[in-house]
């Protein structure tokens, strides 16, 4: 017997996992509805994905393969430490390959590679309430969800157009799930909104500080809100990825020097690496290979 106390599998105790699973089941049954749950203190600060970690901890099994991304990247602090956390407390296999993962915990992005059946995407959500900055009273926003009073959401979009001439919201763009609940897709860029629509994967959202879990089951209608004469559009990039030459993907701008030099690279690092190993090369990728 080991003299040192062991963590329970996946850190949380079994009763807590049951409680969270019940909340998840309810969330799946009512797509887009925010289910309250008794969020636990996790060994990381709020804002680092405590909600997503609790959801992942409740659904992960010994056979699962976990991928964690932060802003699309597998190698940033948040992603690395959460991956290490589950490798330690659940001894699960981890990966950076989207296709190999059964559970993908994410902050801000949906992988470029379409997700398949059986995969679960877990979002870390800072603010689950889409109406929060329009109506500060939580009692009132709950009532508005209950009575399907979503006119206020369009007030925000109206303000955007009045001020900027177009809908200027670029992330956390509100969506309507299955024709009923208006949902905040967490701070993902609106570029990813269309990927949520009719996705084959199960999408779970955990907000630790706010004690809320919500879900979009597979093959569920997810529609971004808009006006008839100002329809929803996604971001468009002028140039392809400088490393792998990918188009139609979400790009990050990287500043190269203090004289205005910059490059655009894939936000999804796994997608970029796969493309490069398959022989795709961008404008700056050549130089890198030559060095």
């Amino acid at each position, binding site marked *: 017997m080991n003299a040192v106390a062991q963590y329970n599998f996946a850190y949380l105790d079994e009763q807590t996992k049951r409680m969270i699973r019940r909340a998840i089941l309810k969330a799946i049954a009512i797509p887009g509805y925010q289910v309250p749950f008794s969020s636990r203190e996790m060994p990381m600060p709020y804002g680092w994905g405590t909600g997503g970690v609790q959801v992942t901890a409740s659904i992960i099994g010994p056979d699962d393969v976990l991928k964690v991304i932060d802003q699309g990247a597998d190698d940033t602090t948040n992603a690395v430490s959460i991956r290490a956390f589950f490798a330690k407390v659940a001894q699960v296999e981890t990966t950076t390959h989207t296709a190999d993962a059964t559970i993908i915990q994410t902050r801000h992005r949906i992988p470029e590679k379409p997700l398949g059946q059986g995969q679960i995407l877990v979002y870390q959500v800072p603010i689950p309430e889409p109406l929060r900055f329009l109506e500060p009273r939580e009692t009132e926003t709950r*009532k508005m969800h209950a*009575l399907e*009073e979503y*006119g*206020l959401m*369009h*007030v925000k979009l*109206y*303000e955007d*157009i*009045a*001020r900027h001439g177009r809908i200027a919201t670029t992330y956390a763009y509100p969506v309507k799930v299955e024709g009923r609940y208006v949902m905040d897709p967490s701070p993902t860029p609106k570029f990813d909104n269309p990927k949520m629509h009719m996705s084959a994967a199960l999408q779970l959202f955990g907000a630790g500080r706010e004690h809320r879990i919500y879900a979009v089951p597979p093959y569920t209608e997810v529609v971004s809100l*808009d*006006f*008839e*004469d*100002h329809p929803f559009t996604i971001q468009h990039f002028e140039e392809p990825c400088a490393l792998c030459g990918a188009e139609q993907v979400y790009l990050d701008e990287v500043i190269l020097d203090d004289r205005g030099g910059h490059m655009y690279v894939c936000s999804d690092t796994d997608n970029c690496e796969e493309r490069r190993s398959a022989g795709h090369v961008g404008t700056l990728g050549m130089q890198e290979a030559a060095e």
Partner: protein
Amino acid sequence: MSQDFSHQDPLLRVEGLTKYYGSRLGCADVSFELWPGEVLAIVGESGSGKTTLLNSLSATLEPTSGKTMYRMRDGQWRNIYDLSEAERRFLFRTDWGFVHQDAAMGLRMGVSAGANVGERLMAVGDRNYGHIRSTALDWLGRVEIAADRIDDQPRSFSGGMRQRLQIARNLVTGPRLVFMDEPTGGLDVSVQARLLDLLRGLVGELGLAAIVVTHDLAVARLLSHRMMVMKDGHVIEAGLTDRVLDDPREPYTQLLVSSILQV
């Protein structure tokens, strides 16, 4: 203002409305009828139960006893306290308006004037930006707010402009009944006069029914067809506005009328 209401059904029928706060009386046994296009003023000193009555009538407060029957657009009479919350809120977005004394309570101070007017339209399902904006512009014009202020927040508006914006916001869905709680309170007299003029025009033009709570008898005189005088929670006198003000019967009403300062 005179108008013949006898040929129509009333819009609102109030029967024995009583509200107690614990053992303290808010208002007692109020009954009246209101016809479409009619403006009723409720006057009285502070603490006489005017606001309690208004809040009870608008279903903001649940009365202790009594009924308020409202004739819905489909012609059916419904007791507003029996409506589900969804129905009541829908009524408030479409068929009713509420003009608060403090415009900040009735407006969204953080969004532009245009969005304030457009909110009700979006709430009832208008999803065309161009249409919402042109309707908002039209209404700002009708309440005499310059078109170039449409994208400004009400924070930057003067008191009188805020009040006019609040009125536009309420009237944009063509309500049939508007509640007003001291609509001119806190405004200086010249602004008051302009607002009253505007309100009088709109009420006549749109055929609105309105219930106006005020302690200012001049407001009642200008706006209302009929008035009720309240004291200590009871309606002590009711009748045509001109009759009540020119020939008050109750000693308290006589006191009220004679208390008006003459310049």
